C-alpha cells in the first residue's frame, strides 16, 4: 500500500507543470467555494452580530399616545422592578426627557467663553438605564440607586455633550450648571447600543429630576432581554407593568427573528454553493481529462508495470491515487486561497472573518473526493489496457 502511494506520488511529481495546470480547475473551484461560503458566513455573521446584540434584545415600553381619555396612562416609577421579575429580562431602566424650559447648560471650567451655555438635552433615568442600553463609560461611573433616593445632584454626560462643555476628566469632580443649579459630573458615556441621544445629553437620576423639574412619570422603559426572549417579554411587559390597563402601553420589540434574514441568507448561500459546484465540476472534468491523457501517454509504463508483476488492480489503484492526490492538492491550495480571500475582504470591510473549521478541513477532502470521482474512469481504462498492446511499438 505504501509502495503504491509512493509510485503514485512519483507519477504525479514527474510532471510538475502539468500538475499545476491540472490542479488549477480544482483550486479555482474550491477557492470559489471556500471564499464564497466564508464570505457569506462572515457577512451573515456581521448582520447577526449587530442585529442580535443591539436590536434583538431591546424592548421599549411607552404610554400609548393614541390611547384617549380614561385609557391614557403613565408608566409607574417602579416599572423596572416589576419588569425585572419576568424571566428573560437582563436589565431595565426608565428614561425621560426633561422639560428644562430656558435653562442652558454651562461648565464651571469654561465660563468665559460660553457665557450663555449650551442648549443641551437634559434627561433623567433610573440607575438601571445604563445597563439596559449597554452603556459604556469613557471615564468615571454611572449613578446608582443611592444617588437616586438621596436626590443627589449628580449627572452623567454623553460624550458629545462632554466635548462641548470641555470636560474630559471627572476625578476632580467638575461641576456643570443647568440653569443656576450646580451638578457634579460623575461619569462620561462613551457608547450606547440603543437610545443614541444619551450621547448628546446630560443625564441625571430620577430623584434629582423630580425635585428640580417636577418629573411626574418616566417617558419610557428600556428593557434588555436575554437573546431570544424579546418577543416573550414584549408580550408579558404591559401586564407586568400595568395589570389594570395593559392596553394603554405601547411596546416596541424587534421583529420575529429568522423569517426575512434567514431567507436572504439561504438564497445567497445557495447561489454561492451553486457557483462553487459549477467550478468544481469543471475542475473535476479537468482532472478526469488530464488523467485520461496521462493514461494514454503512459501506456508503455502500464505495460512495463504489468510485465513486472502488477495486477490490473495495482494499475487502477495507482492512477486513482494519483488523481486523488491531484484533487487533494488542488483542494488544499484552493482552501488556502479561499481563506485568504475571506480574510482579505473582511480586512478591507472591517469585518470579523468567520470561517467554519469544518469548511477548512472538509474542503481539501472534497478536493480528494473529486479527484477520486474524476479518476475512476481513467483508472479503469488504464487497468483494462492489455500488456501486449501496451508493450508493442516504440
Amino acid at each position, binding site marked *: 500500500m505504501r509502495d503504491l502511494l509512493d509510485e503514485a506520488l*512519483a507519477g504525479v511529481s514527474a510532471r510538475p507543470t502539468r500538475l499545476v495546470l491540472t490542479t488549477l480547475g480544482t483550486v479555482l473551484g474550491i477557492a470559489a467555494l471556500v471564499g464564497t461560503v466564508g464570505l457569506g458566513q462572515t457577512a451573515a455573521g456581521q448582520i447577526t452580530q449587530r442585529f442580535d446584540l443591539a436590536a434583538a434584545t431591546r424592548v421599549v415600553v411607552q404610554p400609548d399616545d393614541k390611547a384617549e381619555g380614561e385609557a391614557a396612562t403613565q408608566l409607574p416609577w417602579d416599572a423596572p422592578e416589576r419588569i425585572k421579575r419576568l424571566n428573560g429580562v437582563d436589565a431595565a431602566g426608565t428614561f425621560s426627557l426633561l422639560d428644562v424650559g430656558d435653562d442652558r447648560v454651562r461648565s464651571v471650567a469654561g465660563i468665559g467663553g460660553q457665557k450663555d451655555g449650551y442648549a443641551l438635552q437634559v434627561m433623567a433615568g433610573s440607575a438601571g438605564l445604563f445597563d439596559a442600553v449597554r452603556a459604556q463609560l469613557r471615564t468615571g461611573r454611572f449613578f446608582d440607586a443611592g444617588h437616586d433616593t438621596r436626590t443627589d445632584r449628580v449627572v452623567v454626560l454623553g460624550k458629545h455633550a462632554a466635548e462641548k462643555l470641555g470636560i474630559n476628566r471627572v476625578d476632580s469632580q467638575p461641576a456643570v450648571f443647568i440653569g443656576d443649579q450646580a451638578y457634579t459630573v460623575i461619569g462620561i458615556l462613551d457608547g450606547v447600543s440603543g437610545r443614541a441621544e444619551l450621547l448628546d445629553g446630560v443625564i441625571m437620576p430620577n430623584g434629582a429630576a423630580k425635585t428640580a423639574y417636577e418629573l411626574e412619570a418616566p417617558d419610557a422603559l428600556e428593557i434588555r432581554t436575554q437573546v431570544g426572549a424579546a418577543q416573550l417579554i414584549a408580550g408579558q411587559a404591559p401586564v407586568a407593568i400595568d395589570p389594570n390597563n395593559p392596553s394603554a402601553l405601547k411596546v416596541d420589540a424587534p421583529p420575529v427573528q429568522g423569517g426575512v434574514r434567514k431567507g436572504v441568507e439561504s438564497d445567497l448561500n445557495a447561489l454561492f454553493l451553486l457557483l462553487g459546484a459549477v467550478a468544481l465540476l469543471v475542475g473535476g472534468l479537468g482532472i478526469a481529462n488530464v488523467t485520461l491523457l496521462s493514461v494514454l501517454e503512459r501506456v508503455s509504463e502500464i505495460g*512495463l508495470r504489468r*510485465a513486472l*508483476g502488477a*495486477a490490473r488492480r*495495482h494499475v487502477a489503484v495507482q492512477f486513482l491515487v494519483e488523481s486523488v492526490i491531484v484533487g487533494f492538492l488542488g483542494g488544499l491550495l484552493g482552501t488556502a486561497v479561499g481563506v485568504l480571500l475571506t480574510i482579505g475582504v473582511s480586512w478591507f470591510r472591517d469585518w470579523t472573518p468567520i470561517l467554519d473549521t469544518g469548511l477548512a478541513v472538509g474542503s481539501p477532502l472534497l478536493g480528494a473526493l473529486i479527484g477520486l470521482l474524476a479518476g475512476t474512469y481513467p483508472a479503469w481504462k488504464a487497468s483494462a489496457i*492489455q500488456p501486449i498492446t501496451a*508493450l*508493442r511499438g516504440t
Partner: protein
Amino acid sequence: MTTDAARLGGVATAVALPAPVVEMIGVRRFFPGPPEVRAIKGIDLTIREGEYLSIVGPSGSGKSTLLHLLGLLDNPSDGVYRLDGVDTSSLRERRRAVLRGERIGFVFQSFHLLDHRTVLENVALSMVYVGVPRRERMARARVALERVGLAHRMEFGPRTLSGGERQRVAIARALVAEPSLLLADEPTGNLDSANAEAILEVFDELHAEGMTLAVITHDDHVSRRAQRQVRIVDGTLQW
C-alpha cells in the same frame, strides 16, 4: 517433481536432466479477426534450467507473440504451457501477474525505462509488486547495477545514458528479482555493434552463472551466441 521425473524417466539414462523451466505442448495463438491471424500454429518447446536458447526468425514470423506467451503477458488460444511445472492455462490473471513478477525477467528492444525515475529506482521497481521490503530493494538494486557495470550511474536519469547503458539497466532490472527465466526480445535491436557486444557478453556471463535465458532475435549473429538455437518460421518451430 516426482511426476515430472516419472514422465521423463521414459528415457532410462544415468544422466539426470535439469528440470524444465518451460514446457509448451501444442501451443497456438490465433488473433480473432477479421481476418483471423494465426500467429503461432502449434509449438512444442522445452527450455531447461540453465539453458541459453535463441529463437530466430524473420519479421512477422511470430517471435514476439511467442515471447508474450512465454512471459505470461498473453494467453494461448490452445495448448498447454507449464512454467516451473505449474500449468498456467488454468490460472487467474491475478495469479499470472504474481508469477510474472516472481519468475520472469523481461528485456525489451526499446528498454522501457521510466524517464522520471533514477536508474536505481528503475531497477528497484521490479521488486515492488513481488513484495520485497523497501530497504532490501534498494540494496539488491545496487548489487544488480554493480553486476552490469553501472555502479557509477545509479542516481542518474535514464535519459542521460547511452543506449547500451540503458539496456544494461533493463537487464539489471530483469535480474534483480531473481527470475527463473530471462526473456529478451531483440535486446540489441536498437544498439550499435559495440554496445550490442557488451550486452551479449553480459548474457554469456549470466549463462555461465546458471541463468536460464531465451533471446529472441532476427539477427543470426546474436542467435549464434546462444547454446541452442531454434528457428521460427510462419508460426512454427524448425529445428
